[in-house]
């Protein structure tokens, strides 16, 4: 089962690789990056705005943490924000 959160997270990168992140005050060490992908959409919309659709250019990473949970996170290229997208049970 997948749960979507779309909440900001704090990340740690080492030599360009995602090695850890913090979410809701909990620190997660990344054991493995299972997959990564890139999605770009709605280039005709403003890059950001209050509600509604807006342009996105996202680098996704699916990671397995040291405690064997799987998360999807992405970084928005335009502003560098990291967002936790989904958690898999």
């Amino acid at each position: 089962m997948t749960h979507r959160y779309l909440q900001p997270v704090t990340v740690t990168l080492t030599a360009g690789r995602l090695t850890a992140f913090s979410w809701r005050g909990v620190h997660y060490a990344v054991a493995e990056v299972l997959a990564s992908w890139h999605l770009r959409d709605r280039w005709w919309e403003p890059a950001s705005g209050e509600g509604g659709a807006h342009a996105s250019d996202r680098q996704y990473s699916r990671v397995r943490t040291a405690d064997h949970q799987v998360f999807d996170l992405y970084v928005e290229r335009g502003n560098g924000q990291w967002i936790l997208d989904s958690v898999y049970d």
Partner: protein
Amino acid sequence: MIEADHHGVGQRATDTTDDAQASQPAGYQQDYVELHARSAFSFLRAGSGVEALVARAAQLGMSALALTDHMTLAGVVRFQAACASARIRPILGAELAVADPVFGAGARPAQLVVLARDAAGYARLCQLLSEANLRDPAAPIIPWAALAAQPEGLFLLTGGHEGTLVRLLQACRRQEAEEVAQRYARAFGTEQVWVELQHHRLPESTGLLQQLVGLAEAVGLPCVATNGVAHATPEDYVLYDLLTCTRLRQTVDQPHRARPRNDEAFLKSGAEMAALFAGLPWGPAALAASQEIAAQCQVALLQGVCTAPRVPLPAGQTPTTHLRRLLRQRLGGAGGHESAAAAAGARAGRHPPAGAGGVFSLCPRHRPAGAAERHPRKRSGQCRQ
């Protein structure tokens, strides 16, 4: 390494994989040649012109580049001229829309890439495209049997996401995919077929590549990496997506499976491709195969002399007299009006040179504005028939 985000929401990373890749010099790794690239001659299927593609390849330090427009070779002269200026070796080919029997009659055609290895292969490719366009100018398709009938001088690449193998694998029809790959090998020979690996950084990319490699190993075919290029730079993605929507006759707000999901189909350097395939055990071999294939493709059209296509003539007719007769028939009725024919002839390019009427009658009216200045054969070449 982290720093606070300017917006106070989330965190901004100071070091990303993309930043690290971007710090590598252009042309860092040069043992990669792009063998699958469409230009604007692939009408509404690409976001850059041939000159932009060649300029980008030169910037990246590529030694060669293939032009594989969709169902046409119309761009090859300009491509070769641009390559000559940039000192890049041109490789000629096309992305073919092939009716594969595995999908049944009426199914949408699969896309295969064919590269001309020599002059005979190039001639065969011209013939296949001409026949397909004559059969159905609006939606030309090449039957698989026609492609397989004379494979001499051609290399076959199995195509990207619209290739038969990928479509079958995505439909969980692995056994049929294997049978199709075996059919390719029987028709072209195992030395002339490569399973094409494209990594557009989509969610399904890695899994699909692993399936393709497994398939290739099962049937004894080698793999080659390409990027299925549709635009020269990431910035050209917007135009490519817009043109795709135009081709699909829809607005940008409407989703469609044929639309690009990111801007990764740009012309990438060897270093960028190596980074994409890093960690995949068969990646280096697939990248190196691109150069091996490129080294075997030796077709040069611009040798200072342009040979016009031969048009079958009725007995006793010269190209000029035949052209006049056709103009009378089409424009002036059966009896014809000499004045109408003469006027049409004048509009069509004045009086054609002796021996080349069939060619020069139509070309001037259809040549894009400014093409004469860019067209090398108009400056330095001469035509004969």
